[in-house]
């Protein structure tokens, strides 16, 4: 199983708490860095400012990206990730409350790897996180990150 960092981009503290809770329950022991807005996520991924050291802030194995975020929204973050050669092959999973057809279409057009809608029940969220783990961290072979 891949044990690199997971970048969770989520601004709502309760959602962060509940996600970390189910990540733990699903047996995902990877370090999780939480970016509270789109700008911070981009700074992390581009190694800007406090994130300049790739030793402490390595490129993540997985980006769990909400859509509605302060400063820069999920679409903007996704677009930037796909434009930069050093981040374009990152695995980005949209994890949002919105099941709007427009949002889904736009996210795929910008190159998301998957689009997941947060379920209401915690039990279902845990099931979803287990599926993410099994597929993206166990079964899947990611692209080599170095350009």
């Amino acid at each position, binding site marked *: 199983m891949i044990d690199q960092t997971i970048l969770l981009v989520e601004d709502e503290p309760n959602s962060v708490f509940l996600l970390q809770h189910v990540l733990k329950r699903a047996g995902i022991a990877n370090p999780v860095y939480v970016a509270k807005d789109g700008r911070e996520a981009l700074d992390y991924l581009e190694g800007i400012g406090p994130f300049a050291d790739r030793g402490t802030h390595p490129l993540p194995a997985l980006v769990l990206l909400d*859509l509605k975020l302060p400063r820069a929204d999920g679409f903007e973050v996704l677009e930037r990730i796909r434009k930069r050669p050093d981040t374009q092959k990152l695995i980005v999973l949209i994890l949002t*409350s*919105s099941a709007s057809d427009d949002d889904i279409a736009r996210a795929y057009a910008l190159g998301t790897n998957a689009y997941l809608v947060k379920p209401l029940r915690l039990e279902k969220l845990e099931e979803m996180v287990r599926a993410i783990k099994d597929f993206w961290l166990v079964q899947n072979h990611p692209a080599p990150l170095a350009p």
Partner: protein
Amino acid sequence: MKGQTQVKAARPRADPPPAPSPRASKKHPVPVVVQPTQGGNFPRDAAAINGALLISGLRQHELTEEAVKLNGRLEKEISERKLVEVALQSANHQLARQAGELEQLVAKRTETLRETVADLEGFSYSVAHDMRTPLRSMQGFARILLDSYADKLDADAQGYLGRIASSAARMDLLIQDVLNFTRVMRSDALLSPVDLDVLVRDIVATYPDWQAPNATIEIAGKLPRVLGHEGFLTQCVSNLLSNAVKFLAPGVAPKVKIWAEDRSRAAAATATAKAVDGGEPVVRVWFEDNGIGIAERDRSRIFRLFERINPTDQFEGTGVGLTIVRKAIQRLNGRVDFESEVGRGSQFWIELTKAPTEAATDPTLL
């Protein structure tokens, strides 16, 4: 008679004169012609002139009277025509102004409507995205307490937490249903041929609860192709079926039968029905259940938004399902209704226009 003074009064013609202008007839009375005698016989001439003057005076009097009458009539007619003309002109002006105002109003209303639609879209987006987030937290934290702190909570406390969690879940259901409803209201209802047989069988296959032995759903024969919209029809069929298997007396296993009935011949039989259906081939699809039935007094309430006939603690639901069905069917130019008897089940039906046969779906033939 040579050498005689000729006196001629121009006689008024029997037919009405060629409408002289009233003023002209006043200034130039009908001419009386006096021709002097060739020798210059003064007394004769004078007598002739006098006579002529007399005639002319009499006639003039007569004629003036007539002219005045005619004049009066003409003036009246002219003033009437003028009035009409003025009225017409002002009506034209008013029309032009009103058309302009109307155009402005339409433009303004369209703009307002566009804004409203945009607001509504923003609103449903916010409902979908923002309002569900706190609900997820409510449900999530209640769940954590129930899972991880169960040993520290008595039965009451656990019950209350259960209620918090289920209330959040119910609120989420409501939000989703309202979103489904607004989607049916908003999206374009472009009619295209839909294979109801495939659609209904696919929907039935999607729900584990609708398979034997949980439920028996029988589709009798082959359902036809209709003119519809796949998304709308999916909403209709799944709502009708979920009602059919839901509203059951305790201990009864759901049994649903679906079949199609050709209504085209029935429509052709009576002139009124034909007028209503426009003579198009109509098909009615029936959904018959063995549920608790619907009382006659609830007939009008059942399709209304958020109306519920049965208490929530008996049957889960939001009171949106049949409203979606009705709205969707309306937008497909179809009809929906039901027959029911309390305790003996319900038969809901939807009526739609049949799609042309495969061979006739060539666009040039449509």
